[in-house]
């Protein structure tokens, strides 16, 4: 006696099909379920599929939860599932099949559907952090004065884990305490994306600036970094609260974050205002150059025209800290 759980697209294309040799299948957002549904609208333990004998399977919502049947108008807590019935859990559509409904059951030689689903999901969640480690190693390799091979620098990149693991663990602990769901993979994915964002700002942007012949004002880097940090922390908070209503605590945290971002930006702006030291990006290999080479006579014309701009700076008001 088997059950097949199919994950469908909105157009009912089968994304995955998992076979269960059991009469009871738990579905939810928590990792203890047979079917893991990665959707903020789904509770950690949301639904049970039960099949007794050769009867049609039934869906029962766990206490406090509900689901919809596609085509239905109201949320229900219990329903018998026909061969074409489609369950809607948040944005996810599921169809429950029995032996009589399917003729192409998956091969027993393959990994079980649950294992495959989880493995692929874990890999996807770990991908950003993995990319971050690879990029960090690439960056240290490219900037290395020692001439060592890339693989030697990869070990340096792995040291990021010393920071990433406690970071993810801390957020997971907070998630577990507040929402009874550690959401490890989600926090891992967010942390990885945050790392990638920071690398893009601190390493990618100067590289792009140098390759394109543009040197953005130095005061752009700090706000961008703060923004990435803020977005990362916000995403973690969102996971902790499972994307639900903004409680006063979360609202206060977000307001504090916004205030801190603004303060950091203002502080940086003040500092730049005092120093006004232009940022000159470093050298990059010439094959990375994105802009065409400018003719020398045109450069001459541009430099001649630049005098007005430089002379006008004399009339700019002087910050208090620099007054004579």
């Amino acid at each position, binding site marked *: 006696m088997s059950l097949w759980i199919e994950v469908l697209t909105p157009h009912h294309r089968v994304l995955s099909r998992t076979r269960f040799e059991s009469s009871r299948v738990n579905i939810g957002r928590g990792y203890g379920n047979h079917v893991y549904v990665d959707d903020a609208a789904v509770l950690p333990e949301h639904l049970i599929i039960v099949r007794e004998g050769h009867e049609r399977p039934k869906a029962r919502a766990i206490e406090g939860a509900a689901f919809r049947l596609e085509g239905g108008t109201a949320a229900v807590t219990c329903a018998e599932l026909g061969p074409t019935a489609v369950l809607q859990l948040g944005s996810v559509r599921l169809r429950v099949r029995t032996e009589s409904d399917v003729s192409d059951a998956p091969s027993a030689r393959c990994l079980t559907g649950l294992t495959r689903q989880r493995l692929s999901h874990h890999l996807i969640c770990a991908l950003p952090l993995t990319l971050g480690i690879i990029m960090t190693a690439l960056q240290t390799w490219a900037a290395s004065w020692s001439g060592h091979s890339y693989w030697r620098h990869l070990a340096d990149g792995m040291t990021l884990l010393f920071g990433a693991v406690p970071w993810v663990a801390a957020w997971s602990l907070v998630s577990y305490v507040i929402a009874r769901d550690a959401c490890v993979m989600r926090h891992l994915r967010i942390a990885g994306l945050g790392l990638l964002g920071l690398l893009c700002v601190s390493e990618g942007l100067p590289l792009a600036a140098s390759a394109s012949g543009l040197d953005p004002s130095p005061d752009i880097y700090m706000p961008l970094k703060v923004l990435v940090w803020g977005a990362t922390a916000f995403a973690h908070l969102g996971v902790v609260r499972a994307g639900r209503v903004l409680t006063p605590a979360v609202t206060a945290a977000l307001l504090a974050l916004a205030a801190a971002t603004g303060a950091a930006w203002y502080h940086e702006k003040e500092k730049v205002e005092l120093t006004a030291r232009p940022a000159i990006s470093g050298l990059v*290999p010439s094959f990375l150059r994105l802009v*065409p080479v400018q003719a020398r006579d045109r450069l001459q014309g541009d430099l001649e025209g630049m005098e007005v701009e430089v002379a006008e700076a004399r009339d700019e008001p002087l910050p208090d800290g620099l007054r004579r």
Partner: protein
Amino acid sequence: MIVRTLFSVLLVCSCFATPAAEPLMIGPPGGASLGAEIFARVHPAVVILRTRLAGSERDTSSGSGFLVAPDGRAITNYHVVAEYLFEPKKFALTYQDADGATGTVQVVAIDVLNDLAVVALQNLPVRDGRRAMLALPDSAQSRTPQLGEAVFAFGNPLDLGVTISAGSYSGVVPGTFDSRIHFTGSLNPGMSGGPAVDRAGRLVGINVARAVDGQSVSFLVPGSRATELFARTHDATPLRTDELRHEVGDQLRRRDAYMRELALATPWRQETLGGFLIPTFLDDYMECSSGSNDSTSSPPPARTQTISCTLKTSAAPIPNTRSATQSYRNVLVQARSSGSLNAFQLAAIATPAFNNGLGSARSGTMARQRCTNRYTQAGPRNDLPVRLVWCAQAYRDFPGIYDVQVALAAHDATDAILVSRISLEGVTWPTALAYTNRLLEGTERQ
């Protein structure tokens, strides 16, 4: 490298009993020891100049000067009075003569390039109806001392009081725009602006600087320069500080025009650095050095060769900040062996030479710096792609005067990167463009 001292002492020429309207000439020494004799004669004409915080009795710096006219006009260094000149509300200038009398000081004329100033000592007392002065040399009949001839410098070293420092005349420093006399004697902070005289008590020069990395290698401004400046002042009427700052700007523009003309009239030369030809600038006036990180015991992954040049002399238009000098530096970074470094690593190694110190901060005297970053062509045939960063910063007090920094990197090859940097302080825009053009035209692959 020549670095100006910030403080100086003054030295005086001496003399007794001369009617207030007539300068007292010093005669040949005799009798007592030579140093004691000269000190006795010159010391009365030397004054100590102090810069104080307005309303305070505390000095911020001190220098020296010497009386040259009966109406209280004295000669000193420009850098002794510059602090007051740029911040007249914050600072006050005072003097102390050989008898301990004190009073205020007004600036009458300045010569930034020769680092000289004529000041008027207010309410200078007259002793016994006479005023000790040191005669300025007549430029038409001035005598050039012989090499090795004894010279005595007077001043107030480290605010210890007026002292005498013996040394010798070692000729004029070659390759300087503003001629400097090499004095092989000791000059110390506080002696700036003091007189240096020969054994007959005749003014040879004015103390101005010492070489910080040398021992008893000091420099004097020729006395004839003081004569020329003094001749431009008709009386002791002081100028307003804003007029004087305007005059500083004018002198910087004249200096710039002179140097640009000289630079353009001088045949440009190229020298070899690795596989590149690089231009040189004002060869005869530059002090150059070269270096390499090559080491046989622990060879670095990239070999770096450097050529650095700086003008031998410079002006100091603004106290404690810019020196209106010019310098350039070429750095060649090469992988030790083919393929030992990738293009990214080579670029990373060359980057500090390219952009370290390129951005300059805004200050009370300088406006915000603007930079432009371009990829352009270098070489006489425009066949060498280069990255060029061009930064300019205006002087707040001197319209039309800028500090310009240029950085050029030729990094089209995978095995070597050439970085050239030019730093021009206190120049006009056309001068900066002329140097930039020369840099671009003169940089090519060999």
